[in-house]
């Protein structure tokens, strides 16, 4: 990977092509003064700075202040409290329970979704054409359903009075699920939420991984079969290694989405998740907007971003390399 020598030596005018060097050394990028590329990047950078950067800075500042409703309404600068919000959050066992719950949920949901997604992707290669079309159509419908709509649908299906799930379960002999409430027991409630998240996440995973599987050379698998490899051996030794970069990306993406779980538990709990249904996102939202502890909510958000950055440093490095290479 050749990184630029010195831009200055190449100052021969922004638009002059460098035929010789470009072709001969296969240097992949034109080099010149950074005027044009910066010009191209300016609109993006300005927008990001204005609508993301500035609020972000305000959020961080807010986390060192104590902004309550009174300050919000009057517009007075809230009092500075230093690290108070952080000590309060970090010494609160409720917060750590929420962190633990969010992490646990993310781990479980991601593992289930990726495993099922991969299984479905493999299955799609195995089934008849008609069945594959059916699977694709089914997944497209699920995918097209907005998160909020999907969550409402699940709330309706699991409703204790009118839900079809209780009705169907109740028809099983010896099972009494009339008026069963799925959210009394957090294990059951989280099963519903996880099912929803996995259900909604599978189409993306299965279709992407299926596309990735087209990259697996047929000849390799055939050769393996000739050598007497079982399906599992072929999977472990041929398919997974080839799929690995793609798997890494879809897994990290799933981690980001599931870690930020908000809509699903929010909507399934009708806009007021009980303590055992709080995740980091809903917890920070409830603190900030529900309790008008804007500063505390900001502190939680800052910590969340830091946690994410820590976990995702790996992902960013991976993506960064990709961006660097080509």
């Amino acid at each position, binding site marked *: 990977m050749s990184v630029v020598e010195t831009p200055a030596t190449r100052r021969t005018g922004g638009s002059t092509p460098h035929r010789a060097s470009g072709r001969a050394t296969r240097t992949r990028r034109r080099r010149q003064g950074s005027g044009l590329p910066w010009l191209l990047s300016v609109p993006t950078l300005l927008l990001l700075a204005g609508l993301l950067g*500035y609020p972000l800075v305000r959020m961080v500042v807010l986390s060192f202040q104590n902004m309550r*409703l009174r300050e919000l309404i*009057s517009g*007075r600068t809230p009092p500075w409290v230093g690290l108070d919000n952080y000590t309060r959050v970090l010494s609160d066992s409720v917060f750590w329970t929420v962190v633990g719950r969010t992490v646990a949920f993310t781990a479980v949901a991601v593992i289930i979704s990726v495993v099922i997604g991969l299984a479905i992707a493999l299955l799609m290669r195995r089934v008849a054409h008609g069945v594959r079309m059916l699977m694709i159509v089914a997944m497209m419908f699920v995918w097209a359903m907005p998160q909020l709509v999907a969550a409402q649908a699940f709330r309706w299906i699991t409703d*204790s*009075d009118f839900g079809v799930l209780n009705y169907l379960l109740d028809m099983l002999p010896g099972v009494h699920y009339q008026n069963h409430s799925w959210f*009394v027991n957090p294990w059951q409630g989280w099963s519903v939420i996880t099912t929803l998240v996995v259900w909604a996440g599978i189409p993306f995973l299965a279709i992407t991984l299926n596309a990735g599987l087209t990259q697996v050379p047929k000849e390799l698998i055939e050769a393996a079969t000739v050598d007497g490899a079982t399906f599992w051996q072929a999977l472990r030794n041929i398919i997974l290694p080839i799929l690995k970069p793609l798997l890494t990306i879809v897994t990290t993406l799933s981690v980001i989405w599931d870690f930020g779980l908000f809509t699903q538990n929010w909507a399934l709990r009708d806009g007021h998740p009980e303590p055992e249904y709080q995740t980091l996102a809903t917890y920070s939202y409830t603190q900030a*907007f529900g*309790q008008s*502890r804007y500063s505390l909510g900001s502190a939680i958000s800052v910590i969340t971003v830091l946690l994410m950055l820590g976990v995702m440093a790996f992902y960013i490095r991976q993506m960064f390399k990709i961006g660097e290479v080509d």
Partner: protein
Amino acid sequence: MKRKIVAAAAIAATLLGAAACGSKTDNSPTTSASGAVDGKGKTLKVWLMIDAQSGWKGVVDDASQRFTAATGAQVNVEYQEWANHLTKLDATLAGNDVPDVIELGNTEFPKYVFSQAFAAINPADYENSGTWLQGLKGACDFEGKTYCVPYYAGARVLIYRTDLFKKAGIAAAPKTYDEFLSDADKLQATQKSDAKFGAVYMPGQYWYAAMSWVKASGGDIAKQDGQKWVGQLSQPSSVAGLQKWVDMAKKYSKADPTKNENDQAGIFAQGEAGMFYGNAWEQGAAEQVKKDPNDPNSKLVDTKVKGKLAAAPMPEIPSFLGGSNLGVTAKSQNKQLAAQWIKYFTDSTSMAGLVKANALPNSTALLDKAAADNPTIAPAALAAKSTWFTPNAEKWADVEKGNILQTMLSDILTGKKSVADGAKWADDQINTTLNDN
């Protein structure tokens, strides 16, 4: 185009970090609603809750017309949903383009009054202000001034199935709590074959109901002790009330312990319960549903329980006095006009309209007349004479929004926590929330 440039320049200015601006409202004079105001060319922005639109839009329009005729100002009413409305309100109040008149639930008001969101008004300017319902007015008072105007009230009553009562051999609505329980037993006995049937429909997070039981036992939610608020739920009398409520709900209710009361009328209409505890209008909501729920003028469709319901005060259980107040925002540019509009919207003419729409008027003086004019709300009007109200603490709304009571009730009803443990937990939460700075 020009506007965009201005906007871009302003964003730039903001980015450069202009200092926070805003005006102090502490010492603003009391807004008067008397005398003539010329409002020609002005438009008043009013936020009412959705109930006004679905229940008594005619009253709103009539008041606005009279207001416009008198002042020349136009009125623009926007109807808000209860779900999440405070979040939106907070964001709006933070800005400068705020509504002039805002309706809030009475338990929500103190937080905003303490936070100086509303301007002081002069009670004498409003009709019946001498006899305003205390449960409504209490939320408006702060440091000797009044910051809002009572709008309407609701009291909860016992709504029951007359046909099932008859079948069980019960002649009249229960007069004592013991009678209520024995009636529930009788209903349960006659409907034994129906596994879905519960004598009482009592959803688990219905805290207005549960706290009424607490009050009935002499308990309380929280009490002020000097500067501090102290949760009272783990006091013996409160625990006794909670226990009484849990025992009743466990024995007679098949309702979801994690639901609140929002859907109770619709669920009760399925005919699988004998009694429920609700607002007067919920009797109507259980008997008839709108064919098209999105159309305020929709045809009504009868439900299974049509013509089989009656209401009576819940014996020995004081009702929570719910309701709404109206306030003039501190940042309003049209405070006097706003106060005038409220005057029209809360006068006796408007109150008569509300009574017709099954809401309780804002004054004790009007309650008896309301009961006489509209038999549907007579039991509620009666119940409104013995009511309780939530602690008048600045942060009370946060207790509600934090779902502290709801969570505790679900927990003790499902056995996740014992009543004593649940009450203790709730007290801790209440103490933190109410005394939080």
